[in-house]
C-alpha cells in the first residue's frame, strides 16, 4: 500500500512536469509575441506537408546571409547569435554575427553555415507559418501569383534571441485578408 502511494505521488510529479513543459513553451513564445520588437522580413514562401503539425507555409528569407566574415573558425551548423538591424526601407537584415550572447540590441539564436570563404548563411529559425489545412495550398497559389509583382513580408517579433512570426503580408495586406478576397 505504501509502495502504491509512492508510485502515485511520483506519477503526479511526472504528470506535473509533463504539463508544465507545453505551458512554459507557450508562455515563452507568447511573451516574445507581446513584448518583442517587430521586424519586417522579405520572404519567399512554399508549401510542404508536415503530418505532425499540419499544413504550413514554409518561409524563405532574402536577407539571410552575411558577407565579409572570416568563416575559417565556423563549424557547419554551429549555433551563433545573428544581430538584427533595420535598413533605410524599414526591412530587417543581419548586420553581424556573435559567438557569445550580445548584451544589448536585437539578435536571433540560429544555426550558421559557411558559404565560401567570407560569407555566412544563417538558418533563421522562424521559417514556418502554420495555416488551417484548407488554406495553406491556397496561400501558396496566392503567393506564387503575386511573386514578382508584390513582395511577401513576414512580421517577426524578436526578443532575447527568440523570434516568432506574427503575421504574413502579401504586398501590404495581411495574408488572411488576401485569401478572403480570392475566395
Amino acid at each position, binding site marked *: 500500500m505504501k509502495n502504491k502511494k509512492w508510485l502515485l505521488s511520483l506519477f503526479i510529479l511526472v504528470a506535473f*512536469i509533463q504539463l508544465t513543459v*507545453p505551458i512554459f513553451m*507557450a508562455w515563452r513564445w507568447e511573451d516574445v509575441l507581446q513584448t518583442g520588437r517587430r521586424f519586417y522580413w522579405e520572404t519567399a514562401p512554399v508549401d510542404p506537408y508536415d503530418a505532425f503539425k499540419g499544413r*504550413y507555409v514554409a518561409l524563405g528569407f532574402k536577407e539571410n546571409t552575411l558577407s565579409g566574415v572570416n568563416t575559417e573558425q565556423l563549424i557547419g551548423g554551429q549555433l551563433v547569435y545573428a544581430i538584427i538591424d533595420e535598413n533605410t526601407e524599414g526591412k530587417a537584415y543581419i548586420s553581424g554575427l556573435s559567438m557569445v550572447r550580445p548584451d544589448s540590441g536585437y539578435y536571433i539564436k540560429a544555426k550558421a553555415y559557411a558559404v565560401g570563404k567570407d560569407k555566412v548563411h544563417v538558418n533563421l529559425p*522562424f521559417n514556418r507559418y*502554420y495555416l488551417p489545412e484548407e488554406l495553406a495550398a491556397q496561400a501558396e497559389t496566392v503567393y506564387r501569383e503575386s511573386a514578382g509583382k508584390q513582395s511577401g513580408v513576414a512580421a517577426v517579433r524578436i526578443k532575447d534571441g527568440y523570434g516568432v512570426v506574427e503575421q504574413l503580408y502579401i504586398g501590404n495586406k495581411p495574408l488572411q485578408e488576401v485569401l478572403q478576397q480570392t475566395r
Partner: protein
Amino acid sequence: MNKKAVAWLYQQLPELIDKGILTTESAERIREYYGPATDNTGNRTFLLIFGVIGALLVGLGIILILAHNWEQLTKLQRLMIAVGLLAISQIIAGCVLWFKRDSLAWREASATLLTLMIGAALAMVGQTYHLVEDVEAFLLTWMVLSLPVLYLMNSTAAAILYLLGVTSWISNQHGNHLVWLLFGAVLPYYRGLLISRSKANATVIISWVINLCFYFIFGAVFSAELNKLGLLVYSALFALTYLLGAGWFKEEEYSGRMPFKVVGLAGSLGITFILTFKDVWQGLALGWHAETMLGYGIAGALLLLTIGANVLLRSPDALSIRRFSLLPCVIGIAYLFLAYEPSGIGAAVILNAYMLLLSISVMASGVQRQSLGIVNMGMLLVVALIVARFFDIDISFVARGIAFVLVGLAFLTANIVLLRRKAGWQHEE
C-alpha cells in the same frame, strides 16, 4: 506450467483419491497450487493487443485532428485543448495506476495514449506559435518527457514508442553521443522484463526492437568514424550479439524466438561473404590508416570484448558457437595482412578459407546431429562462396558451367543420401 498437463493432472485427481494415494485435502492443495486448468490467457492477450492498438489509433487520430489547425480557435483555447487532452490522458493513467495496476491491458493502453498525448500537446504549442525549433528538439523533448511513463506504468508499448522516437531523433542528429544516454535509459526496464517476464511475447518483441534500434543508432552515431574499419567493427558487434544470445538464453526453443542469435548470425555471415571479395579489400586498403583515433579505439575495444566474451563463454556447445563468434579475430588478422600486402589478395584468401572451413564444419555438425536444415545451411554457404568466386575470377564459361553442374549434383545427392539415412535411422529406432 503447461495448462494441458494441469488439465490432465486434474482428471487424474479423483482416481488418485479413490485409490488412497492422495487425501482430499492434498488434492485440494494441488488445485490451489496450480490454479484453474482452463486457459483464459488467450482472451487477455486479445484484450491487450486491442487495447494498445485502440490507444494508438485514438492518439494518432487526435494528433491528426489537431494538425488541421482550426482557425476558429484562439491561442488560449488551443493551449487549453492541448493541455486538457494531456491532463485527461494523465488522469486515466493515474487511475489505472491506482485501481487497475494488475491489469496489463489497461496499463499498456493508457501508457500508449499518454505517450502520444505528450507529443500532441508539444506539437500543438509549436503550431500555434509557428515554431520550427527543428523536428529534433521536438522529438527530444517528447522522448525525455515520455521516459518516466514507461517505468511508472511498467509498459512495454511505451518503451517501444520511446525506442522508436529516440531512433528517429538520432537519424537527424548524426554523431550526437547523447543518444547513448537516451538508449541506455530504457535498458534497466528491459533487464527487469528479462528477469520477470522472460518468456512473454512482449519481451520478444521489444528485444527485436532494441536490437534493430541499436544497430541503427550505432550506424548513425559512428558512421563518420568508421568508413574503413566499419566492417570489422560491425563483425565484432554481430559476434557479441550472437554470443549474448547463445550464452544468455540457453533454452533452444526460446532462444530461437529471441533476435540475438538470428541477428548476430545473419550479420556475421553477411560480412564474411562481403569480405571474400578481393575488390572490397582493395577498397579498404586505400586509406584505412587515416582513420580517427576514436575509430581505432572503438574497433580495438570491441575486438577485446569479443575475445573476452569468447573466452568466458560457458556452454555445452561452446566450440560450435565460437566457430561464428571468432570471426572478428579472423577479420582482424586479415586487416593486419592488408597492412603488409595492400593488393588485398592475402586478406581475401584468409576470408575465403574461413568461409570454406566454416561451411564444411557446419555441414559436418549437421550430419552429426542428423539435421537436414543445418546441412543445407552449410551447403548454401559453399554455394554462395563458389558463385561469388565465379564473378570474381576470370574463368571460361565452360569451366564455370561444369563447376555449377557439379555443385548442383553434389547438393542434390547430399540431400537424397541424408534423407535416406535419416529414414533409416528412424526405422532402426
